[in-house]
């Protein structure tokens, strides 16, 4: 039996939630005040995911950097792999919102897309 302590992110209450796990299965969830808290805790202990946002360098653009995000959430454990993979990327201006700057980042099957337009330098 493994107990995990979480803070719910559903509202400013920030309920302290305890999840009891056994062999990778949720046995018990306690400490939540509403349904959102329980759902959050179950997801967070079995399959925690995050959208990752960062920047990549731009060549020949009006701005030196362009902001990017993973098009979907990726496993929490892959956040640093994703950031590391993007550090090596430079995109060529012009860039439009939604352009794929790196596909299948860190083997997640998720693409990284631009979140800002950068025009080419004249």
């Amino acid at each position, binding site marked *: 039996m493994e107990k995990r302590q*979480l*803070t*719910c*992110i*559903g*509202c*400013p*209450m*920030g309920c302290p939630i305890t999840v009891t796990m056994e062999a990778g299965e949720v046995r018990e969830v306690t400490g939540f*005040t509403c349904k959102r808290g329980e759902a959050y805790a179950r997801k967070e202990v079995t399959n925690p995911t*995050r*959208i*990752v*946002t*960062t*920047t990549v*360098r731009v060549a020949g653009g009006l*701005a*030196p*950097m362009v*902001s990017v*995000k993973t098009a979907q959430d990726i496993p*929490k454990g892959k*956040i*640093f792999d994703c*950031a590391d993979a993007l550090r090596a990327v430079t995109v060529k201006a012009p860039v439009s*919102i939604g352009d794929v700057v790196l596909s299948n980042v860190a083997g997640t099957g998720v693409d990284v897309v631009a*979140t*800002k*337009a950068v025009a080419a330098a004249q």
Partner: protein
Amino acid sequence: MNSYDIVIIGGGPAGLAAAVSARDAGVERILILERDSELGGILNQCIHNGFGLHTFQEELTGPEYAARFIDQVEERKIPYLLNTMVLDVNHDRVITAMNKTDGLFQISAKAIILAMGCRERPRGALNIPGTRPAGIYSAGTAQRLVNMEGFLPGRKVVILGSGDIGLIMARRMTLEGAQVQVVAELMPYSGGLKRNIVQCLDDFGIPLKLSHTVVDIRGRERVEGITLAQVDENRRPIPGTEEDYACDTLLLSCGLIPENELSRAAGVDLSPVTSGAVVDESLETSVPGVFACGNVLHVHDLVDFVSQEAAAAGRSAAKYVQGQLETDETPIPVAAKGGVRYTVPARVHPHRMEEQQVVRFRVGAVYQNAYISVYFDDERVSRRKRQIMAPGEMEQVTLKREDLLSRPGLKSITVTIEEA
């Protein structure tokens, strides 16, 4: 002198939404003045997601949210001047501004919408002892350096203040390879959203020390270290609790202050609580024809609410220009009592109200299972239970126009927190 119907000062989220709604209300001659080299304001450096859930029912990043509104401004062909700094606004609604191409110039406006946003509380306003080396940044400055200019301002970081920008930057600096050692917060609670504490600190094992502050900064040319100490209930450092941290960077996320130098110059009455203008239901300030919205009016948590408020300011300014906002009605004051620090608006003209009037406010402490009550004179007209209220989260109540119109002679409206 060029003249416009409405001049909007600031091309961030508030200015953009105000411009769109004023145009949609039929005003042709609108001009946006923006000091940066692009529209979008602070959203351009807020590359994290979580914007727009209320407005677009999806989670956007800051630049994406800004782009939605910039597109609307472009579609409507609303003119704007970039790299243009407004130097003065006077009581007669004459604006003095300058930029590189036009030099110094004046513009007259039938109505002005103040949408200048806010700025961060700097070190000088925090009274932190110690030397004055390089390496001390406001969190927002570091955010701009990392996200827009591509520089990492330091490698070993301590953050003072647990406002959302500080929390976001803890994660951001960590992702870029810096080591964020600790976030210290003077208050016994964080001013940031729970989601940010979990996803920006807990995810990366960064400790949050509540009731702690920086009592010393060391280093001659560059920050070499800082000392944290615990504070008592009066926020005074407790001797013997000092802990030294070696670091090359200190980020400050200690509050935001509406940027109202221009408003003051124009003679606009400011609230000592919000540092923003005192406005009525139309978001009109004490100077007729001058309106305020967004973070220059009061600091918001969510850009969605900035956009809503700014759209209302745009509609009001349009009515003013079209001669539909004239009134000889005496406004009814909206008083903030019992834990409510302020309300926006601070007064209402019932006949000028829209059907429903949202009154936004902040509480001064954390309340659990307390009620938000509204009184018309001495009579309680509504009471709503809230499981939790905190200073970091803006609250609201809604007033109905018909309720006010059905009570001629009403002297005051009070919003208050009542504990069970």
